[in-house]
């Protein structure tokens, strides 16, 4: 939610920390900050309010209250702590609520004789810095109050409401089959049966989709003189369902679906009445308040020891007392035993741990000292699947196979997704075959880069059939040299079966061969194997890796062979070649070496690649020529 720094200043005055400091304080005691941006004279802080605090903190007052607790400064003003006057019932307004489980509270104010017009500059600015459009003084006043204290409001043109026995009438009911609404933005929505609506109880006009969006019928226009302001509290589940069904997410629905306190309604009306009176005139003719079940504040017992035992802190009674005061929670305590009551607007707090979190946040998680776990209560069990998978990995890697991970989501399978991201990721794989085949193809293209004449890969991954998911081993082989390709593959896999049998201590390893891929159900195989008693150390500590980003540009190949005097090492030749080609020579593979007449011949495949461009033939010719010259310049060296 976007928060205006100047608006917060109304609440905290000069004790409001600078935006920079606020960022830090809010981050470490309350919420993540998405961004901070200067907008004109103001600074807009975008705060990520998650569902647990959307009930009270999607409001400037809520954020100011958080800051107040963090910096231990009382709010200068607090609209939620003002006293509410007794309700004066409006003579000419009637509200009927069909189902009090869906509409838990419906408060309203009837104001006559307002003058609808543009908002004053200060109000326009308040809304515009938040990215809101100013509509007119009445609508702006309702929005202002929502952004101020978190209660969505809606204004109706009272004269558009049907009249019965001299009373304007509002009804809250669920929709019947086939009802339609045109919302304020001009869009038409077909409403499915059971959608909660605000209606004109006399006529059949739909005035709004409850808690989501107002309708065109009773829109406040420049002709409007009498208005009804709605401040309601709806069932969050009903609002959420309708909002999702109609794909209508509004500032109102966002708040209602997170269950703000039902106590807010009359505080909001008090605020909006005062504001409208100042900026649009009019006379308050009273209001209504349907509120069958009073929402009780949440109270819970918590001990100092419970706080410390959950947080790992060492607070004492007076620490807790100080924090509860900062939070504006009321409490009673006998030494370490507290009974805490949250203020009504904190409808997010339910259980003991919620209260402990509040204490912990204000105390500061930074002050928690890291502590090691006590000695393990028992020896961990050995994961059989992982144990044998490790043996398989070790055996195959020793045979020159590298392990790949390929995509689980694919274009075809038995288990399909109801809501896939893309057609080629619409199902779960039934086998590793396709993934490995793709991987073989990809690596075939890069074989020269990799210096390989055979691609040898394997994967251990989950595959999905109708009833079960199981671990499969897939091995892929592709050779460019062998003339008898099929025979090569068969021989390779026959050998591997023996390798696996030995590695697993099993006498029955038989997979199936499908083109270039060997597949084996590992889970079935593991069932036949004994329970392991301890993990083994099969792999050496991995060497320190200096990872190099893959260049998106193509690589180029060149070969070179050179005669060198006796005693010359491979490294000596490589050093010169590297020096003459800068960063562009990224790999070299010695493919031939022989000695004759007191000389040694070295022959290399050279791989050139740039990280920022495609290398041209001309560029490479220059490098090769320079390299050749320098090699020839060594005493007794000769490029062949």
């Amino acid at each position, binding site marked *: 939610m976007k928060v205006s720094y100047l608006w917060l200043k109304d609440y905290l005055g000069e004790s409001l920390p600078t935006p920079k400091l606020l960022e830090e304080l809010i981050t470490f005691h309350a919420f993540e900050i998405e961004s901070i941006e200067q907008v004109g004279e103001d600074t807009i802080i975008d705060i990520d309010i998650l569902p647990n605090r959307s009930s009270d903190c999607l409001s400037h007052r809520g954020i100011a209250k958080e800051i107040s607790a963090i910096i231990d400064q009382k709010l200068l003003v607090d609209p939620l702590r003002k006293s509410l006057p007794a309700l004066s019932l409006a003579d000419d307004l009637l509200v009927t609520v069909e189902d009090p489980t869906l509409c838990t509270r419906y408060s309203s104010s009837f104001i006559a004789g307002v003058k609808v017009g543009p908002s004053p500059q200060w109000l326009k600015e308040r809304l515009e810095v938040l990215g809101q459009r100013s509509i007119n003084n009445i609508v702006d006043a309702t929005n202002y109050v929502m952004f101020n204290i978190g209660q969505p409001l809606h204004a109706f043109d009272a004269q558009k409401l049907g009249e019965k026995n001299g009373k304007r009438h509002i009804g809250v009911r669920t929709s019947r089959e086939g009802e339609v609404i045109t919302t304020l933005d001009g869009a038409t929505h077909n409403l499915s049966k059971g959608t909660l609506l605000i209606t004109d109880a006399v006529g059949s006009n739909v005035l709004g989709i409850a808690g989501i969006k107002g309708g065109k019928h009773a829109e406040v226009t420049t002709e409007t003189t009498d208005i009804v302001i709605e401040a309601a509290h709806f069932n969050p589940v009903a609002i959420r369902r309708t909002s999702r069904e109609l794909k209508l997410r509004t500032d109102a629905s966002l708040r209602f679906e997170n269950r703000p306190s039902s106590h807010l309604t009359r505080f909001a009306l008090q605020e909006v009445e005062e504001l409208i009176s100042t900026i649009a005139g009019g006379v308050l003719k009273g209001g209504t308040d349907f509120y069958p079940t009073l929402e009780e504040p949440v109270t819970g017992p918590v001990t100092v020891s419970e706080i410390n035992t959950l947080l790992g802190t060492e607070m004492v009674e007076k620490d807790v007392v100080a924090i509860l005061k900062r939070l504006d929670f009321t409490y009673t305590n006998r030494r370490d035993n507290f009974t805490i009551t949250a203020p009504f607007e904190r409808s997010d707090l339910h259980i003991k741990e919620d209260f402990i979190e509040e204490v912990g946040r204000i105390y500061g*998680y930074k002050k928690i*000292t890291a502590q*090691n776990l006590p000695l*393990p209560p028992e020896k961990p069990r050995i*994961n059989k699947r992982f144990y044998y998978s490790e043996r398989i990995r070790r055996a195959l890697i020793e045979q020159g196979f590298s392990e790949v991970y390929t995509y689980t989501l694919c274009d075809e399978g038995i288990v*399909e997704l109801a809501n896939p991201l893309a057609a080629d990721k619409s199902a779960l794989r039934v086998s590793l075959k396709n993934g490995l085949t793709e991987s073989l193809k990809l690596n075939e293209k890069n074989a020269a880069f990799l210096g390989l004449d055979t691609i040898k890969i394997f994967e251990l991954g989950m595959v999905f059939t109708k009833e079960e998911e199981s671990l499969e081993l897939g091995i892929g082989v592709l050779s460019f040299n062998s003339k008898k390709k099929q025979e090569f593959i068969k021989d390779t896999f026959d050998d591997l079966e023996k390798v696996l049998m030995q590695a697993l201590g099993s006498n029955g390893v038989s997979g199936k061969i499908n083109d270039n891929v060997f597949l084996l159900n590992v889970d079935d195989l593991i069932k036949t194997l004994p329970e392991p008693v301890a993990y083994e150390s099969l792999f050496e500590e991995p060497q320190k890796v200096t*990872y190099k980003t893959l260049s998106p540009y193509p690589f180029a190949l060149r070969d070179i062979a050179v005669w060198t005097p006796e005693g010359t090492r491979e490294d000596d030749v490589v050093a010169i070649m590297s020096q003459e080609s800068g960063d562009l020579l990224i790999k070299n593979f010695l493919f031939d070496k022989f000695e004759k007449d007191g000389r040694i011949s070295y022959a290399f495949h050279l791989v050139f690649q740039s990280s920022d461009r495609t290398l041209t033939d001309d560029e490479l010719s220059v490098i090769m020529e320079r390299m050749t010259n320098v090699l020839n310049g060594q005493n007794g060296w000769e490029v062949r």
Partner: protein
Amino acid sequence: MEKKRESWGHSHPISQAIREINDIFYNLGFTFVEGPIIESEHYNFDVLNVPRDHPARDMQDTFFVKGRPETVLRTHTSPVQVRYMESNKPPYRIIVPGRAFRNEATDASHEAQFFQLEGLVVDKGITLAHLKGTLEQFFSTFYKDDITVRFRPGYFPFVEPGVEVDMLHKSARGERWLEIMGAGMVHPHVLEAAHVNPDEYQGFAFGVGLERLISIKYGIEDIRLFHTGDLRFINQF
């Protein structure tokens, strides 16, 4: 420049990481546990204190399985928490490395399919301080460096309090705090769902993206490389 090839193949960096992680946590008394990838909404959400029709469900974009009601691809490895607790007696110390899925567009730092590492400790008197200590031990061993972590308030429905965990990462470019995972104290509703008495037992849980852990270690910029089967990538490890 790279040395010429050796005759041995290469272990995938995810497998290497799981191996190292299991070594570290085994020594701290954690059992390596797994669970199904095709999961019920019951285990993926309900028992984790993410009720139906609650806005918290929107925090994770979910793939649903066609033709099977209330069945999803697990959006995290957390369902295994309750599955394990249901069929074992406390205390618990488990890690769950495994695949999870989120229905979100793919880019260099997001994948619809990824690996997550879950950790769960439940016992008498386990605190947030133990979480901090355990994570510092883990990171320091995994990154072979002396690593500090810090907590910020966070929200995950299955923990209370919930924290965001940052670690102080040192590299050639200097020190900086990296947002690394979500964690917290196991929510009493989760323990109750698993028939563990929350008045007697409490504990912590954490969940971290494995590809992210590895990427930080090696400076990998594009997490998609983990799943393409590209030996130009894998053979570097």
